[in-house]
């Protein structure tokens, strides 16, 4: 394995991300932070939502920010570079097995997702004001969930980026990502769906559910959540499946 080439590509992605930092943060952070402000601040201070809703909301928002940053950071450039600008060709010709370029993309996407999580925690905390009760009793488990969520985001980005046509980007957002957010247990715990048993079962197909529930289980365990072992197992399986699918799709795009 040619690590020099691998790290040079990682350095390239870091360089580009640093150059576009402000735009990237606005693109991925603005929407979650607006949600935080409306649901966590406006609704609670007006009494429409109880004060403890803040602590319930924050883990979901962290998960959503990470997942969408990771997906966008990997998928959008890949869609453009494979189909339109062909910018990726130079890196496909570099002296390294091309599968490693996909691995590099996944790693870069994970790092961006983690950075997004790192930004959204203090920013939302500030926006939410007083009354946020998060605890970090199991830091290692929390770190484990973070890594698995970041991996899910960027491996998902790889799969989407190598499967979606440029003309279908709008559909990807409206048909796939929007329902994923709505049924991703971001604004409510999974247990809140018990009144809708069919939906409650169906949403288990949505990987975002495990991201939100896992972060909630490790940051705000006072709310009922899916058992952590189940969450970790599901995330591991989803990550493995997405990596396998993503690598296959990437290879098919790269070699004709």
């Amino acid at each position, binding site marked *: 394995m040619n690590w020099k080439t691998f790290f040079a590509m990682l*350095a390239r992605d870091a360089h580009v991300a640093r150059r576009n930092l402000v735009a990237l943060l606005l693109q991925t952070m603005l929407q979650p932070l607006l949600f935080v402000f409306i649901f966590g601040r406006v609704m609670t201070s007006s009494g429409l939502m109880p004060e403890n809703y803040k602590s319930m909301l924050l883990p979901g928002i962290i998960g959503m920010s990470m997942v969408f940053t990771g997906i966008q950071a990997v998928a959008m450039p890949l869609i453009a570079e*494979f189909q339109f600008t062909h910018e990726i060709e130079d890196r496909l010709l570099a*002296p390294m097995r091309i599968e490693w370029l996909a691995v590099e993309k996944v790693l870069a996407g994970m790092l961006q997702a983690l950075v997004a999580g790192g930004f959204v925690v203090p920013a939302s905390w500030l926006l939410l004001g007083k009354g946020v009760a998060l605890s970090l009793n199991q830091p290692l488990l929390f770190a484990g969930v973070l890594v698995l969520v970041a991996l899910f985001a960027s491996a998902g980005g790889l799969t989407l980026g190598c499967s979606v046509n440029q003309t279908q980007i709008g559909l990807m957002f409206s048909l796939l990502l929007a329902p994923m957010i709505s049924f991703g247990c971001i604004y409510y715990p999974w247990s809140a769906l018990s009144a809708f048993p069919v939906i409650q079962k169906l949403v288990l197909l949505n990987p975002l559910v495990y991201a939100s529930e896992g972060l909630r289980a490790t940051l705000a365990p006072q709310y009922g959540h899916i058992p952590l072992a189940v969450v970790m197992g599901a995330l591991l399986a989803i990550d493995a499946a997405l990596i396998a699918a993503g690598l296959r799709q990437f290879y098919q795009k790269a070699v004709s």
Partner: protein
Amino acid sequence: MGIGVSTKDLRKIYTSPPPMAGPAARGRMMGRKERKKFEIVALDGVSLEISPGEVFGLLGPNGAGKSTTIGILTTRVRPTGGEARIGQFDVWRQQVEAKRLIGVVQQRPNLDFALTAREILTFHGAYYGLPSAERSHRAAELLDKFQLTERANDVARNFSGGMMQRLSIARAMMHDPQVLFLDEPSTGLDPQTRLLLWEIVREYNRIGKTILLTTHNMEEADALCHRIAIIDHGRVIALDAPAALKASIPGGYLLRLHVSRSTTELVARLEAMAGVREARQNGDRIDLYADRGGPLIGPIAAAVAESGTELYDVHISEPSLENLFLHHTGRSLRQ
């Protein structure tokens, strides 16, 4: 010591539209009606032996298989059959080793638009493991050589077509490859930049590098290449030095006649004229291969008039690769 390139009975059949191949390759569908299966035979047994230090040209119309040949030799297209080698390395089985030896300029600009011109070169160097100091030094040198120093710190997205092409070539040379692939290098270049490109190609070749270029521009193939393979429908139909290829056309000159009504008798009569080597009839058009041009017009006009036909047009072309292609395929390169 330079590195050679060889292919043996190379075949490529696309079973789905190639995602990144040249747009021309999608043109020829040979779908089997009974199964409605998508199938394009892009290469049908291409064997080439390119010597170290040679400038070799692939000449052919759009969709002939030029880009597919380059695609296979640069690891981007999986061959359906046959073998392709860069030096001693099998391109498909030893991709990384092969990729180290080659530099590639694709038909379309594919620069990294997120980077400046200088960064495009230095990051490219980094992918090939060049040390930092050498990267900066070589990048500066190449920017200067390709007259891009003034715009070195601008993002390449805003460059003109000619500048992008120059930067693409500079990038391909950044890691000092032994074999340089140029796919249609002068498409869209102004005449001045084209001359600069030719000069750079010759200079790179003088230091012992092997160069493989594709073109449908006869002048370019003639000016640059030691040898040329003419490709059509995925097969090599002629291969030799440009001068030898031109000499192989019967007579050398081509006179294309457009008449009101062409008869076998007229064609036979034209073919029997002194200086005419071969006559071919295609509807109301007659192609004469001859060893002279202008002096034949008088006798031709007389012969046509005597057969009771009207002569609309005569076009004379001197010995060229274009005529050679026409002679082999019955079609013009530009069709």
